[in-house]
């Protein structure tokens, strides 16, 4: 029912299904199963970068370009959840106001809900929902990212890393992490002092060797372009959209797109399997048994690694010799 409504273009059904996924509602997985055959058509574009580099404004400007080119657009914008209260202030729509009146654009704000890595646990499935809904281009804007929030590269086909002038010297550009996942670099706020310096630092980094994306199995045949934009004035955004198309064409040539898809799905399967196994294991063991082991670890009668192994085995139904190891055994 919900799925039928969604496929017929009902925005409320899209919104509701994303909420069910976010809340971990068991019905969501049944619906996603039905939707899965309808997915796989959209071009998924990740947008990441430090807070304040202008990601939301850039997504807004890109969405307008895509709409002019006749594409429909989905946007998922992730902001952090408070680790203390579980609440979140989601403010990315403020920079996307011009898009609200356009029915060809669907924007969803999403709180990270405890997930680190720049995305929420529900992001990948929410992208699928928008994909099945028929959006041609889906932009996923990450939490303002530092250096290690690289999950987006597993969700997106094309990842844009947004920089702004004056954020760091060239050594920052040599570090591992977020710079390695870029398929396209953008130096936004390019009217500010130091924009060329930032471009040069990125170019120098690339000159030393194109970032190796191990999953593609081959380095060097895609050199990430570096583009300057002023997102709030919508300057430099058309050429950026052209580069996104060029990257998609590159992925479609050869085995790149299929390889990324396999990598993406393998990673997701691993995550889901871990979640299932953990839930099953905890269920079988029961909270009393866990509490008992926690007590032993806290008392230094058992170390955490041995305890985890012991519990995994006993949950698996393999008989464990002795009910619990003596402190002397556990120390080995």
């Amino acid at each position, binding site marked *: 029912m919900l799925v039928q409504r969604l496929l017929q273009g009902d*925005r*409320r059904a*899209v*919104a*509701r299904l*994303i*909420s069910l996924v*976010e*809340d*971990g*509602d*068991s019905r969501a997985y049944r619906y996603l199963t039905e939707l899965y055959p309808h997915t796989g058509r959209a071009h998924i574009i990740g947008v990441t970068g430090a807070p304040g580099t202008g990601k939301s404004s850039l997504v807004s400007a890109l969405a307008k370009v895509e709409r002019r080119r006749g594409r429909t657009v989905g946007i998922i914008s992730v902001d952090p*959840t*408070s680790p203390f*209260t*579980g*609440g*979140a*202030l*989601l*403010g990315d*729509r*403020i920079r996307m*106001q011009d898009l*609200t*009146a356009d029915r060809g654009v*669907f*924007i*969803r*704000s999403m*709180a990270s*809900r405890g997930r680190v890595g720049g995305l929420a646990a529900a992001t990948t499935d929410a992208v699928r929902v928008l994909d099945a809904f028929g959006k041609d281009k889906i932009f996923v804007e990450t939490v303002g990212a530092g250096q290690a929030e690289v999950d987006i590269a597993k969700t997106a086909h094309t990842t844009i890393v947004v920089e702004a002038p004056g954020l760091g010297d060239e050594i920052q550009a040599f570090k591992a992490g977020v710079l390695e996942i870029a398929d396209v670099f953008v130096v936004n706020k390019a009217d500010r002092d130091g924009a060329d310096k930032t471009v040069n630092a990125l170019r120098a980094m690339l000159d030393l060797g194109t970032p190796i994306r191990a999953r593609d199995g081959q380095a060097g045949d895609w050199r990430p372009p570096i583009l300057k934009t002023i997102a709030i004035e919508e300057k430099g955004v058309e050429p950026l959209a052209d580069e996104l198309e060029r990257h998609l064409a590159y992925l479609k040539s050869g085995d790149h797109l299929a390889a990324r898809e396999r990598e993406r799905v393998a990673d997701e399967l691993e995550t889901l399997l871990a979640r299932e196994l953990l839930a099953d294991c905890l269920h079988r063991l029961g909270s009393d048994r866990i509490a008992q082991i926690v007590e032993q670890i806290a008392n230094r009668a058992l170390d955490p690694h041995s305890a985890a192994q012991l519990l995994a085995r006993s949950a698996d139904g393999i008989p464990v010799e002795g009910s619990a190891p003596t402190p002397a055994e556990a120390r080995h």
Partner: protein
Amino acid sequence: MPEPKIRVIIAKPGLDGHDRGAKIVARALRDAGMEVIYTGLRQSPDMIVEAAVQEDADAIGLSILSNAHMTIFPKIAERLKAEGRDDILLFAGGIIPDDDVPALKALGFRAVFGPGTNTQDIIKFLREEVKARQQVGE
């Protein structure tokens, strides 16, 4: 399964540019564990309702100080109805004369919070109302 999160739109319709009160409420709701979608200033009824639809909001809080509420609020209530989302909880704040409150209630506004309201009262109101609606719905 954890309890569903309460998602609230806080919006400033109309042309006045004073959003301090709206921001204080947004912050208080965030600190109470809710997900607050802040849409910014000068929002048209269409923009607010479209945001509420896309965000699957449980509630919409509108702040207005320019005395345009009797013009703008009915339009928002109408648009919600047209979208089939008049189940979304509506509440208002800002400068709203007591005389207008009955008319707003008739439009479906469940509460009007004037200056000096304790944010804890707004939090309590939202938790109770949204919970009741979530149980009715589905």
